[in-house]
């Protein structure tokens, strides 16, 4: 395929996914907004007013970046995992792409772009909801955008691998419940890692969400528990490993071809 043909194939995959997520917006976007609004109300307005300030900012301002990031990664992950699983398990219309000359890296890029778009759109909508509860400051817009892209790419790639490997719908539901949710809660969404005692601080360091939340939060309040350069290096390394894994799966057909 020529680069132009690859672009057409990529944009077809993305377009199809966008049409799908807009068609079922009450399932794709609405739940995140309701969940985020409840978090802002309970942890931000009700409980947050008693906590006072963290890292020199009101508690609700401190948790907004983490909650936005939480919805972004969850949506990026589940979008790709479900679309891949559905198209290989229920309709088997993943074959439409597998029989075509579309190279594996274009297929991966198309699915991941769908997840990134959903994750970023959700993040934007959740930020708008947050503005209803508290004013926000932006310390560095570029850092905000960079960490949002990194977060959604990493978790979309993870969702792709999950969707390819899952052999039942349980295989898709288990990961968000038993892996993603603990990672989010232990990744410093609601607290500063500096406040964690001993071993818990070290455990947090192996959680990718920790790096994402800290970098993202830096973009808003200008403070982070860890250096931005180190966070970006860790996240880029993780994205490269996940892309290589997804490429290997699709190139060899593991989980997709018999």
């Amino acid at each position, binding site marked *: 395929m020529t680069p132009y043909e690859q672009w057409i194939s990529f*944009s077809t995959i993305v377009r199809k996914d966008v049409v799908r997520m807009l068609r079922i917006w009450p399932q794709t976007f609405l739940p995140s907004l309701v969940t985020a609004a409840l978090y802002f109300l309970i942890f931000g307005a009700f409980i947050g007013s008693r906590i006072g300030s963290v890292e020199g900012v009101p508690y609700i301002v401190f948790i907004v970046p983490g909650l936005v990031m939480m919805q972004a990664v969850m949506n990026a992950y589940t979008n790709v995992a479900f679309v891949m699983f559905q198209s290989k398990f229920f309709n088997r219309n993943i074959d439409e792409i597998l029989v075509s000359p579309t*190279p594996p890296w274009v297929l991966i890029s198309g699915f991941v772009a769908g997840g990134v778009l959903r994750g970023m759109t959700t993040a934007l909508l959740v930020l708008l909801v947050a503005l209803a509860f508290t004013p926000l400051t932006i310390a560095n817009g570029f850092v905000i955008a960079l960490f949002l892209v990194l977060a959604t790419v990493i978790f979309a790639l993870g969702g792709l691998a999950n969707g390819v490997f899952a052999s039942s719908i349980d295989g898709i539901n288990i990961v968000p419940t038993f892996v993603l949710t603990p990672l989010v809660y232990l990744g410093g969404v609601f607290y500063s890692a500096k406040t964690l005692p001993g071993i818990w601080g070290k455990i947090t360091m192996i959680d990718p969400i920790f790096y994402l939340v800290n970098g993202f939060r830096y973009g808003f309040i200008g403070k982070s528990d860890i250096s931005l350069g180190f966070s970006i290096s860790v996240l880029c390394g993780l994205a490269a490993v996940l892309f290589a894994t997804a490429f290997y799966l699709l190139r060899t057909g593991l989980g997709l071809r018999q």
Partner: protein
Amino acid sequence: MELALDIRNLTKTYADGTAALRGVSLQVPKGDFYALLGPNGAGKTTLIGIVTGLVNKTGGSLRIDGVDFDAYPERARRRVGVVPQNLNVDFFGRAIDIVVNQGGYYGIPRSIALKRADELLKAVGLADKRTAQARQLSGGMQRRLMIARALIHEPDLLFLDEPTAGVDIEMRRGMWDYLKTLTARGVTILLTTHYLEEAEQLAKHVAIINKGAIVANGTMEDILARYDESQRERDGYRGSRLEEVFLQLTREPEKPS
């Protein structure tokens, strides 16, 4: 003789140890209408899965229009269209989108794909269902939609895996006529079907596969010439000549009581 498909000693053993193909060789000339017949589980769908890239082969080689499938899989796939046995359309997608999107996966610009898709939907009798969701179409309509989808990139070689299963006779005959126009335009077709009268009507060549191996291969005349008149006298005439030959070649020998 130029070959549209050249399969040599193809083998496939699944992870559970099932040997689906045991050294299949098949040469399909360009422009031919080839029927691949066999009982359930004979290996027909596995064979089509391998040549369309949906099943990984265990051994052997294949060339599509002279292109080595192992060395240039993307170039080989470009030449192939497939209508699978099972309905595999996005049931919530609109008919026009399903066909146009398939063109997109082959790198066809949307404006061109839209024009071709409209022509194809008209050709398979679905012009009035252009904006209907696939789930709103009958089984026969969904099969015709899959034919339109398989032709959007103008393939040289078309694989039809039981395309008329569950389709009523009037619609089936309409599909036969359309497939004949495709071969008249130079498209090579490899068809698997359980309707042997369909193969007899359409195919120039026939291969019969049983338990993963080709047990007969030749022109329709050659295969029909194998028909044993004395068998008819022994068993009593039941089906067409092709049906009788098929049964002679594929049925299990009777076990001694």
